[in-house]
């Protein structure tokens, strides 16, 4: 394990014991969950935070004076505080908007900030390794406003090709980049990219969907301007995402979705939007989900983010080594082969076995991996692939998971060999 991690009681076996689904038996074998990049498995404390919420204090938030509604509001707003602390938002909870998922957060970025601040010819710079969530909203804005969407290429060794960065930044108003690729595992140099963008007068948005749960993400230290992520990838529930930006930027953003809760006044002839995060939270928000997210943050902080990162780093290094030793080139890793600036996502291309078939055979061993394009089709095309079989780790993963993975992979190869 890497040194320098927090001195807390981190023990992946304890995390495993905390996670009910990991006790499940599938096809006669205990589940081997290797799909955390897709969605993570919540610990009991998160599940119970939501059950307790519904059992004791479910009520609509805001504007109510009775006790359960005050408690529901406290749970909802408390989660906002927790998230603000978790990412070290300089302006605190006033900078946290709750959405339904990271994808909605990107749409908020494009359709509120983008529509108000970009005009024909302005450039949004993304990368070839982005998730569709950080591509399609920009294409939509391009179709509407005539902006240019430019891509930073990816090198043959699965890193951003930054050799022409200065040129690529020409005319750029926003650089929007993933903190970590959900296909390659590559961790991008966000701090350096932020500095480069700012030098050129551009803002920088970071897709934190993959990075935020696997190592501390400090928006203040990274000096970024926007961060988007989802609770369900950080041991939290489905149905809630996060949009962060600095208070002064948020303050100037026009409303996106319209409805109750986001207004200061509505008349027969028009409306006045509310201030602060409320402006972007139209309708009844994901209240129980916020309670679950709050519990997930507490749990993650208890584990220690650097412990989680170190643990996943160690698992990844071990798996990369063993996959290469066991299968002698029949299993190709689509992503960096070493563990430098690399997270716990390992995309596999198994010679002669389609990813769907890999995943199907693995399922018979109770092993959960995801076949497909992982919502990153431009990246898949870049490497001439239609799909990969993706393995990904979480804080509850153990070396034993890799043992079963390798056993099952060997079976798949034999079967189709």
């Amino acid at each position, binding site marked *: 394990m890497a040194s320098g991690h927090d001195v807390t009681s981190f023990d992946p076996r304890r995390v495993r014991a905390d996670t009910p689904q990991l006790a499940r038996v599938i*096809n006669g074998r205990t589940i081997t969950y290797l799909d955390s990049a897709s969605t993570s498995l919540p610990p009991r404390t998160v599940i119970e935070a939501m059950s307790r919420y519904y059992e004791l204090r479910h009520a609509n938030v805001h504007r109510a004076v009775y006790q359960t509604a005050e408690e529901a509001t406290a749970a909802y707003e408390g989660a906002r505080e927790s998230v603000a602390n978790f990412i070290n938002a300089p302006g605190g909870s006033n900078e946290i908007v709750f959405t339904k998922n990271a994808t909605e957060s990107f749409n908020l970025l494009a359709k509120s900030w983008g529509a108000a601040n970009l005009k024909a010819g302005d450039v949004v710079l993304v990368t070839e390794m982005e998730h569709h969530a950080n591509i399609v909203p920009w294409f939509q804005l391009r179709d509407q406003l005539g902006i240019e969407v430019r891509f930073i290429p990816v090198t043959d060794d699965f890193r951003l090709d930054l050799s022409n960065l200065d040129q690529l930044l020409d005319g750029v108003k926003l650089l929007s980049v993933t903190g970590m690729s959900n296909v390659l595992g590559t961790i991008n140099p966000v701090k350096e990219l932020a500095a480069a963008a700012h030098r050129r007068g551009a803002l920088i948005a970071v897709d934190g969907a993959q990075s935020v749960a696997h190592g501390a993400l400090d928006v203040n230290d990274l000096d970024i301007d926007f961060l988007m992520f989802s609770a369900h990838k950080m041991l939290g529930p489905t149905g809630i995402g996060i949009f962060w930006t600095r208070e002064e930027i948020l303050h100037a953003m026009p409303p996106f979705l319209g409805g109750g809760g986001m207004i200061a006044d509505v008349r027969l002839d028009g409306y006045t939007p509310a201030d602060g995060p409320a402006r972007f939270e139209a309708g009844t928000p994901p209240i129980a989900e916020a309670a679950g997210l709050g519990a997930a943050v507490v749990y993650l902080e208890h584990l220690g983010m650097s412990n989680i990162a170190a643990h996943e780093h160690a698992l990844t290094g071990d798996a990369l080594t063993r996959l290469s030793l066991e299968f002698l080139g029949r299993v190709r890793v689509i992503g960096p082969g070493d563990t430098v600036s690399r997270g716990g996502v390992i995309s596999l291309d198994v010679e002669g*076995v*389609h*990813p*769907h*078939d890999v995943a*199907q*055979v693995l399922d*018979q061993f109770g092993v959960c991996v995801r*076949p*497909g*394009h992982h919502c990153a089709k431009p990246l*898949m095309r870049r490497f001439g692939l*239609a*799909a990969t079989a993706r393995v990904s780790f979480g804080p509850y993963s153990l070396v034993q998971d890799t043992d079963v993975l390798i056993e099952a992979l060997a079976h798949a190869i034999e*079967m*189709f060999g």
Partner: protein
Amino acid sequence: MSNLEDLYREIILDHYRSPRNRGELPSPPAIRAEGFNPLCGDEITVYLDVRDGVIADIKLTGRGCSISQSSSSLMSAAVKGKTVEEAREKIAMFKQMMTVHQSTLEKDAQPAEVDLRAIGELAALQGVVKFPVRIKCAMLAWNTLSQGLDEIA
């Protein structure tokens, strides 16, 4: 592993490893139809040389999982040399095998009657219905063939 062997019968693996009728036909005159499964990226292109109502030749290119590839190989073998009419019947039968079984599985009813002799080798794909997400893979080639046949004026 019994489930798995239901899905990956030996015939399927054989057609996957050695697909029949791979290649292209000059088009035109051949009819060319493309199929695509956006969910898993499976692609197939079917080339049909239809003369006097008979599928004189058929060729396929594409890529995808063992199910989609073996299904297309089995399909090409099943319709080559057949009349368009007969090919359409095979398509209907195959669709029935995939959907009827699915719904009977759901309802725990008796399997519907599919004439296994008429289906021949295609019966190897029966196991797919137990794996609902893979049915689309098995159907891809057939839907694409159907598209191609529709283009015959």
